């Protein structure tokens, strides 16, 4: 008997931003299958035009609440590159520390509050309070620790205060850093291992689905690259970050307010799984051991494993936090005096960092007065949309073959979209099965 399926998820829940899943199967034939992004357009590139060098990071931080630290870091790097503003080693160390905190905060939010309810069989983290209060306690406590780190270094977690071109306006004291270090050693790491235990106990609930694709992230760096590196691909090539346009190839599609991207293949994936696939050997040994418990090793082509890759990165980051604080304390902390004025030459600069959801590019051109004449931002979530669509188009026929009913298919498709941890406010795009 031929099968007809219609799935229509309007404003999928537990993701950041607004998107729909649309799937239509008629007489066994897949007619429509994509993720529609219906978020209201944000126009940030246009908003940056005419703005001064000291305002770009303040504005772009507001692209996204979850990714505000990543946007700030990327924005500052673009501005500093364009205007040749020097940055000290200490500044870079503190920025990396802040980035570790932001990765932890975002991943923990996604894994424990947004994605985990699916594998634990509840509709939300609020429902989890009744069925698994310990998981909620772990979520709240680890997230608190991640936020405390961001608060200490950035002044606050959402839209940080202290990060400006050329340095920090304020820094934490050694006492604050020592206290954080102790809490990361004695509380954060043990709690993350407990989170790993919980996820491992339900690991079979992550759907078994693979589709070969290309993974793009920063790579080719001395450490697991969140802050620096070249553009790396699991297809083997690397590119300098200022050649990002030849990799991202953004196009506008009708079903989404967010642009789509592709490199050599029809799509590629960015995010935790992409970073891990490109840089597995740079993870700490403990993080590698956590990966091994889930059978996760490079190159893994199951998009649902992105959730596990996020957990692995949490363990990695908790450990690098400890190491970086040691380093800072040993060096001694110098007050920073970032420049309040800028006098120099016009120029263009591309900044790239890894934010929780993947590789991010900001590209600014400044005039002689230090004001932006042209801006471009390529957002991780956009870079994933083409890959999400292709995953869905491969996954739906597989699920039909496995004899799944519409409800089960819809559940799995929502879970697939969530696994990508899309951040639609950032990208201004999501799925509809109809």
């Amino acid at each position, binding site marked *: 008997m031929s099968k007809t399926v219609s799935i229509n998820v309007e404003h999928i829940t537990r993701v950041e931003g607004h998107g729909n899943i649309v799937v239509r199967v008629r007489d066994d034939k897949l007619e429509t299958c994509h993720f529609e992004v219906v978020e209201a357009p944000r126009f940030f590139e246009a908003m940056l035009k005419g703005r001064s060098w000291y305002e770009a990071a303040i504005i772009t931080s507001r692209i996204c609440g979850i990714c505000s630290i990543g946007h700030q870091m990327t924005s500052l790097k673009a501005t500093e590159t364009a205007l040749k503003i020097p940055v000290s080693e200490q500044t870079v160390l503190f920025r990396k520390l802040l980035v570790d905190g932001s990765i932890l905060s975002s991943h923990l939010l996604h894994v424990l509050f947004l994605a985990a309810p699916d594998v634990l069989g509840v509709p939300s983290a609020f429902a989890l309070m009744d069925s698994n209060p310990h998981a909620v306690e772990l979520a709240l406590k680890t997230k608190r620790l991640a936020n405390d780190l961001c608060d200490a270094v950035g002044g606050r977690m959402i839209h940080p205060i202290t990060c400006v071109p050329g340095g920090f306006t304020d820094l934490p004291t050694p006492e604050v850093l020592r206290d954080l270090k102790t809490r990361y050693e004695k509380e954060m790491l043990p709690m993350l291992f407990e989170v790993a235990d919980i996820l491992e106990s339900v690991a079979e609930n992550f759907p078994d689905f693979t589709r070969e694709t290309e993974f793009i992230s920063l790579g080719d760096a001395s450490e697991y690259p969140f802050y620096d590196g070249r553009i790396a691909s699991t297809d083997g090539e690397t590119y300098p970050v200022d050649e990002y346009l030849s990799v991202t190839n953004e196009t506008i599609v009708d079903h989404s307010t967010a642009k789509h991207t592709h490199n050599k293949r029809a799509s590629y994936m960015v995010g935790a799984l992409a970073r891990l696939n490109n840089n597995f050997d740079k993870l700490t040994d403990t993080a590698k051991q956590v990966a091994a418990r889930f059978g996760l090793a490079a190159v893994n082509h199951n998009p649902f494993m992105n959730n596990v890759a996020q957990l692995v990165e949490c363990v990695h980051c908790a450990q690098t936090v400890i190491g970086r604080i040691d380093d800072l304390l040993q060096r001694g902390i110098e007050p920073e005096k970032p420049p309040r004025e800028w006098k120099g030459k016009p120029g263009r600069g591309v900044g790239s960092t890894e934010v929780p959801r993947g590789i991010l590019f900001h590209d600014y051109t400044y005039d002689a007065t230090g004001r932006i004449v042209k801006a471009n931002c390529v957002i991780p979530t956009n870079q994933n949309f083409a890959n999400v669509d292709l995953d869905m188009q491969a996954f739906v026929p597989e699920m039909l073959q496995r004899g799944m009913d519409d409800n089960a298919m819809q559940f799995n498709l929502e879970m697939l979209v969530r696994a990508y941890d899309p951040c639609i*406010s950032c990208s201004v795009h999501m799925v509809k099965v109809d």
Partner: protein
Amino acid sequence: MTAKKVRVGFFDFTGCEGCQLAKVSMENELPQILEHIEIVNFREAMSEKSWDMDVAFIEGSITTPACVERINRIRQAAPILVTLGACSTIGGINAIRVGRDLDEIRQEVYGDKRYLFPSLPVMPVSAVVKVDASIYGCPPNPKDVARFLTQFLAGKIPQAPKYPVCIECKLQGNACLLVQGIPCMGVVTRAGCGAWCPSKGQFCYGCRGLIPDANLDALRISFEECGLSQQEIDNKLHLFSGRELEKLS
């Protein structure tokens, strides 16, 4: 007598969803708050949904025809409507667009496909429906949110301060940035954040909007003395308060 929990809905429009995150991030206070309220609608965090609520919190600006329709529906369902954060309260960072040609902006970002994406001029929620109370800031300060909720749960409609950030900055004992030649907006910006940014050495950029009767002429003179051009001064004023300035002119 068992107190009935207040049924709360959270709704997001055009914005970064950072305000909702700020709320989820109140890890220490969250369990306590949840003793008094029941969250019945919160898309970002839960799949359950209900329209039977006592109060709706609104995040984000109104920027599309669909936004207008949705906010009207929420207003009808909610006896009390509160805006949360700069975007819904004053238009926020989205209001940078105020005064620029919308078609030109859409052309810049989406090119020839711009007509696929209908947009309206950026509006705070109060431009479309009646707003009962507001929580200011980008992002809102957790202490300010806690103050709001405490007063609200005690049966009051909390009011935001009408004095500037400057007063809070003095109370913190900070050295004045403006006196040091750093163009700080604290003198004209609505208080309530505890002088969050100036206390960390960063100038206030006005995320809570202007106080009533702000002396903008005096501010312009001070900023000129800091070495800013007229364009830079305009930019600073329009970072968050584009909509408010439009109303003044």
